[in-house]
C-alpha cells in the first residue's frame, strides 16, 4: 500500500497526489459501502422511526400529510384492550405453533436421512424440497385455494374417496369439509405454511449436518452405536446452533404471516373468516381499510416487541445460554 502511494507522489505533483491518496484511503471505503447505508436509512431506519412516531398520533391518511394529532399512549391502550387484536394474536400464535413445530420435526430427520441414505441424490432431493420456498406465496395460495375448494377441491374429493374404504371411512367426515370457515381455515393455513417452509429448514439442517466431522460418526459406529443413537447423541446436540437460527427465522416469519392467509382468504373476503385473521392482516385492515394509521403503527410495534421477546426465549432454550447449562 505504502509503495503505491509513493509512486503516485512521484508521478503527479506531490501535493495533489498526496491529497488524492489520503482521500482514497480515508473516504473511498465509505463511498463504496454507502449504498447499503443510504438504502437502509431511507427504506429501513426512517420508516421504522416514523412508524414509532406515528404510533403516538391519530392520523387518517386521506386527510393528507402532516394532519396528525398527538394522542400519547392512546393507540397502545386501545390495541391492548381490543378483542379483535387478541383474537388475531391468538390465531397468529396458534398458526405459529402448528405450522412452525411440524416444519422442524420433519426437517431435522429428513435432513439426516438425506445426508445418510440419499447422499448420491442429495442435490436433486434438496432442490425438490426447496422448490416450494422459492415459489411465490401468492401463486401457492391461489393453487391451494383451488385444492381446498369445498365442492370440487381435490382435497375434499380425496377425503370423499377415502370415505368409501371400510375402516378409514368411519373416521372421516361424510360431508365435504368447508375449509374456509373460522374453525377449519387454521388447519388449511398451517398445512400450506408447513409445505412451503419445510424444504428451507431441511436445507439449513442439511448444511449443518454436513459440517459435523465424519470421524465422530465413524468412531460411534466402531463403538457399536446404531443409526438412531448416532442421530440422538451426535447429530441432535451438534445441530443446536442451527436449530437456534432456524427456529428464530420461523418465529419471525410465522409471527408476521400475511400473504398466505391474505390470498387464501381472498383478500377482502377475509373479514368474514375471523379465525384466519393474523396480526399482520389485522394491522393491514386497520391501516388500509379503516385508515387508522396510528393504531396500525402501534400494532406493528407491539408485534415487534413480541417477536423480540420470543426470540429471546428461544435464545434461552437453544442459544448460547443453553450451552452453558450443558
Amino acid at each position, binding site marked *: 500500500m505504502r509503495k503505491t502511494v509513493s509512486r503516485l507522489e512521484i508521478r503527479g505533483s506531490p501535493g495533489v497526489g498526496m491529497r488524492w491518496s489520503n482521500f482514497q484511503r480515508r473516504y473511498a471505503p465509505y463511498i463504496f459501502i454507502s449504498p447499503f447505508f443510504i438504502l437502509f436509512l431511507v427504506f429501513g431506519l426512517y420508516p421504522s422511526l416514523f412508524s414509532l412516531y406515528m404510533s403516538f398520533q391519530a392520523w387518517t391518511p386521506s386527510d393528507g400529510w402532516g394532519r396528525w394529532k398527538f394522542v400519547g399512549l392512546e393507540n397502545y391502550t386501545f390495541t391492548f384492550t381490543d378483542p379483535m387484536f387478541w383474537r388475531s394474536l391468538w390465531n397468529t400464535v396458534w398458526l405459529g405453533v402448528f405450522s412452525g413445530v411440524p416444519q422442524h420435526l420433519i426437517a431435522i430427520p429428513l435432513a439426516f436421512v438425506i445426508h445418510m441414505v440419499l447422499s448420491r441424490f442429495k442435490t436433486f432431493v434438496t432442490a425438490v424440497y426447496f422448490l416450494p420456498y422459492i415459489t411465490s406465496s401468492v401463486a401457492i395460495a391461489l393453487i391451494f*385455494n383451488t385444492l381446498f375448494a369445498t365442492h370440487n377441491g381435490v382435497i375434499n374429493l380425496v377425503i370423499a374417496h377415502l370415505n368409501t374404504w371400510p375402516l378409514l371411512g368411519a373416521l372421516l367426515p361424510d360431508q365435504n369439509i368447508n375449509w374456509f370457515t373460522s374453525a377449519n381455515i387454521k388447519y388449511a393455513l398451517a398445512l400450506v405454511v408447513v409445505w412451503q417452509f419445510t424444504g428451507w429448514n431441511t436445507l439449513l439442517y442439511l448444511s449443518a449436518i454436513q459440517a459435523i466431522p465424519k470421524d465422530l460418526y465413524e468412531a460411534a459406529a466402531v463403538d457399536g452405536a446404531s443409526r438412531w443413537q448416532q442421530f440422538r447423541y451426535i447429530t441432535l446436540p451438534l445441530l443446536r446452533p442451527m436449530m437456534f437460527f432456524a427456529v428464530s427465522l420461523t418465529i419471525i416469519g410465522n409471527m408476521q404471516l400475511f400473504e398466505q392467509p391474505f390470498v387464501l382468504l381472498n383478500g*377482502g373476503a377475509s373479514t368474514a373468516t375471523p379465525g384466519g385473521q393474523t396480526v399482520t392482516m389485522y394491522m393491514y385492515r386497520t391501516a388500509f381499510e379503516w385508515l387508522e394509521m396510528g393504531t396500525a403503527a402501534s400494532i406493528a410495534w407491539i408485534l415487534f416487541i413480541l417477536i423480540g421477546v420470543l426470540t429471546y426465549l428461544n435464545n434461552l432454550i437453544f442459544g448460547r445460554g443453553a450451552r452453558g447449562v450443558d
Partner: protein
Amino acid sequence: MKRTLILLALLVVAGLSLAQKTTLTVAVFPNLDDSLKSQIPLFNKKYPNVEVKLVIQQYADHHNALTTALATGQGLPDVAAIEIGFVGRFAEGQGFEDLNKAPYNAGQFKRLFTPYTIAQATAADGRFIGMPVDIGPGTFFYRNDVLQKAGVDPKNMMTWPGYIAAGRKIKSTTGAFLIADAADVAWINIFATTPANTSPYFDEQGKVIVDSPRFVRAFELAKNIRAAGLDARIGAWTNEWYDAFKKGTVATQFSGAWLQGHLQNWMAPETKGLWRVQQLPEGMYASWGGSFYGIPTASKNKALAWEFIKFVTTSEEAQIAGFKAIGAFPALLSAQNDASFNQPVEFLGGQQARLLWRDAARRVKPLRANKYDRVAYEILGTALSQVLDEGKDIPAALAEAKRLIERRMR
C-alpha cells in the same frame, strides 16, 4: 431572406404549439378502464390536444395507492376513480376537491343523476367529492333452467319465506343450492331496509344501531338458510363461485345489475339464455356497487380534470358508450332513457332487463355516508360469520358487534 426566415420560424413555433399536448392522468381500476377506453375517443373529439393517460391497477391496489398518495400528497393522478366501498372514507378526508364549490359548482349537475348517488359521495359536513359514473341497482338473478326443472315459479320467491321454501324444493329435486352464500341474504336485507338519508348502521344522531330488529331479522334469514343446508358456502369472487354459475349448482344470486356483464363476458358466457332477473323480494330496493370520479386536491390540472369528469359523467354519449362496453349502468338519468334500454338482453333470454334495473335504480333510497361505515361493515361481517359458521347466538353477536364498532368511534 430574413423575412422568410422569420416567417418560417413563426410557422415552426405555431406548429409546435399546435402539436403540444396536455397530458391528463386518470387512475382507474378494471374493468372500469374498459368503459373509459370507449369514452376517451369521444372526449378527444372535443379536446384533441389532451392526451389521457390511464393508470390502471387492480381494485385493492388502486385504492391503496390512492390512499398512500393522498397521505403524502405525492404521485396523485389528475382524476381518480373511486369505488363505492371507498367513497365514504375519502369523502371524510380532506384529500379531494369539494365539487360543490367554484369553479366546479357541481350543484347544478346533481339533478341529472340517480338521486341516491349524490348522497353517497357527500360527506357529513356537506362536501361533495365525486361525480357518479355508474350504479349497481340490486336485482335477483336466477337460473331459469334450474327453477323449471325443480318446478318452482320465480314469483313465489318474492317473499323471504317463499324464497326459502322454493330453495328446499330446488335442493331436493335438482340438488342445486339456493344461493352461494347465505350471508348475501343478510346483507341485502340490511341495505334495503335502511331508512332514507341515514347510514345503514348509524341513526341520525350517529349512534350505532346494529342491534335493532332490522339486523336481527336479516341475520335470522341467513341463519335459517344456512341451517336448512340451502347455501353452498362459497365465497364470492372465487373459482368455485364462477364454477357454480357455469354448472348451475347454485340457483339464485343477489347482485348489482353489473353481474350480467361479468357473467356474459368472462364468468359463465356459456350459460347465455339460461339466466333471468326479477326485483328483490318483498319490494326491497338496494344499490350494489357504483363508481365515482374525483379530483385530488394536489392535482395540477384541475380545470382540465373537471372538464374530463364532466364529459364522462354528464354526456349521454359517453355514458352510453360505457354502458355498451361493460354493461356499467349509467348514473346519468337521461342516458337511462336511451333507446338501447328497451332492447332485449340476449344473455337473459331476451328479457327487457334494463327497464327493470332502471325501475329499481329510481326506487333506491338515498343513504348517507358515515365515516365509520367501513368499520361497521367489516365488524358486522365478522359477527355474521360467527353466527353462521360458529353457531353464535344472534343477539349476542350483534351486541358484541355494536360494542366493537362503538369503541372504534374515537
